């Protein structure tokens, strides 16, 4: 078992720098999830830890040992690929045992590990089948089973569930959580899926365009994002962003007026507030709109569409050029063109300066 440490890790493909100096400490046994938009470098970072991509600059250590120049096989990591990467011509059993057989492990030991791995992943009945005779979920299980064969100190998952249907995804997610508890090893997991990230992670690493934007526990990122990018990325539906302007600053607070809602003002504590007249952004999550009069200020919007999900409803509205999503109690009313007044609360909204950095 091992923790991981990335220090100023840089990746370049030719002249393009893809990862711009990532720093990350992962504790032994921790479950860390990488999230970020497509193309931000999640897979690249994961593959650098695995040894499938060279490290252009900086160091990667696993278990206290710098592994930059260590062969992938000697890093003690196992990886599960999005496409499963099973050996198509081998049975499940052969898939599981291939690596160990090829590296001269004792036959009895291999057989014992195959059995244990198959039991853990509940694939014992499938051992004689070839990958093409398996369903997506079964294949993914085999891929994970193969990963645990070598008893690695570190598991890497690159979007392992993204090819599965929604129901299976939930099921596999629970199994992964169980596996993490059972094995107690360090896991790094790449995903696009908010729910996977929020439910599985001890800590989430939010990446954007090759930079680590924030690292933190799921609810910390949700409650207290470091910047506008993280605020917009974590949480679903997305946080609303409304244009604002600083109209007054006094003893550690800033009064912000919402540009598209005349007269709506919020008083936000701000140690280092931008100057009066600066453009700022107020972020409010869909679930943080309150009934009219129950907050610090009211805004009135015209609803375009309402989505009724049964348990809640989402009202989509346009104010100025801003698209707003407002969560309301469950309802069955059509909302076309209705005017709706809702309240904002200063302690349930976030203030960002115009570069996107959080102002507190």
């Amino acid at each position: 078992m091992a923790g991981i440490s990335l220090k100023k890790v840089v990746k370049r493909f030719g002249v393009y720098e893809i990862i711009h100096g990532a720093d990350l400490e992962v504790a032994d046994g921790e479950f860390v999830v990488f999230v970020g938009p497509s193309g931000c470098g999640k897979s690249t970072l994961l593959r650098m830890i695995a040894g499938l991509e060279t490290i252009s600059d900086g160091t990667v250590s696993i278990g206290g040992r710098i592994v930059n120049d260590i062969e992938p096989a000697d890093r003690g990591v196992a990886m599960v690929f999005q496409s499963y990467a099973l050996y198509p011509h081998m049975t499940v059993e052969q898939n599981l045992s291939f690596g160990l057989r090829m590296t001269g492990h004792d036959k009895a030991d291999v057989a014992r590990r195959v059995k244990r791995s198959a039991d853990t992943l509940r694939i014992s009945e499938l051992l004689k089948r070839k990958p093409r005779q398996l369903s997506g979920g079964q294949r993914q299980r085999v891929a994970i089973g193969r990963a645990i064969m070598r008893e690695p100190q570190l598991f890497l998952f690159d979007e392992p569930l993204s090819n599965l249907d929604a129901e299976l995804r939930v099921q596999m997610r629970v199994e992964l959580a169980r596996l993490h508890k059972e094995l107690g090893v360090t896991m790094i997991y790449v995903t696009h899926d908010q729910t996977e990230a929020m439910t599985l992670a001890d800590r989430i690493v939010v990446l954007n365009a090759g930079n680590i934007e924030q690292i933190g526990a799921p609810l910390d990122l949700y409650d207290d994002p470091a910047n506008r990018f993280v605020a917009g990325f974590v949480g679903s539906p997305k946080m609303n962003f409304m244009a604002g302007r600083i109209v007054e600053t006094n003893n550690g607070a800033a009064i912000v007026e919402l540009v598209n809602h005349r007269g709506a003002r919020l008083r936000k504590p701000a140690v280092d507030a931008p100057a009066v007249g600066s453009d700022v952004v107020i972020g409010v999550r869909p679930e943080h709109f309150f009934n009219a009069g129950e907050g610090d200020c009211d805004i009135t919007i015209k609803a375009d569409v309402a989505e009724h999900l049964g348990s809640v409803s989402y009202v989509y509205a346009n104010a100025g050029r801003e698209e707003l999503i407002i969560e309301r109690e469950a309802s069955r009313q059509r909302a076309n063109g209705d005017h709706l007044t809702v309240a904002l609360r200063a302690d349930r909204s976030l203030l960002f300066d115009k570069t996107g950095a959080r102002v507190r």
Partner: protein
Amino acid sequence: MRLRTQTAYAFLTPYLLVFLAFWIWPIANSFWLSFLNTRSANWTFNPRVTWGRLLVDPAFANALWNTLIILVIQVPIMIALATVLATLLNSSMLKARGLFRFAFFAPVVVGEVAYAAVFRLMFNHEFGIINKMLAVASVPAIPWLSSPNAAMAVIIIAVTWRWAGYNAIIILAGLQSIPEDVYEAATLDGVSKTRQFFFITLPLLRPVIVLCVVISVIGTMQLFSEPFLITNRGGPGQATETLGLFLYRQAFGAFNFGYASAIAYTIAALAIVISLINLWLGRERE
């Protein structure tokens, strides 16, 4: 018949007529011919002098033997070479891949007569470049085109040169269909590159390789141009006479069309049988 169907057939008719006249009719007619004695003034039914002769004719046995020898030596060497070439072509280290791909494919489109003439020159006893190079390595000159075994070797080398690249391109397509992450998984499992080749690449290439073997077997069974042009009609003597050449000699040398038809059917039957054996050996085992 509905109008649409009629229209379709109307459009197909020219092709079907050509197909009938130049494919079906010769195939059917030669089958009939193979039972006739075509050396008498009026052709009479007499399979003894066609099919019966195949069993006892030493010249046929010689041509069959030569063809099988070439097949057994040339096809495996060529396919192995093609696999190696394809693997090199697929290497990420290779620059100018397109150029190499074209270069390997080029021999197929070179005119047969031109290529045969070049080979004759290269393997010329006195001033061919091959013997010159052997001389540099202090190997005595080999009478390539006048020694039976050496002439066979020249044929095998020529055919291999001509078709190895072609097969390599087919195998390359097979290689490129193997997903990269399978190798990455094996690398993480600690499996060496060599073992990856033998335990992952080769098994996954098997269908493609079987296809190449079948194509090559069919080609070699019909081998004609090389012994006709390079070793001057199967020379020295009949040392490199293949079934294709023997067929040609019977049909257009001796005008014995009945016997030639029987030979043609034998070639086709052998090609089918050997191909089926290959397909069976290379089948997917569960």
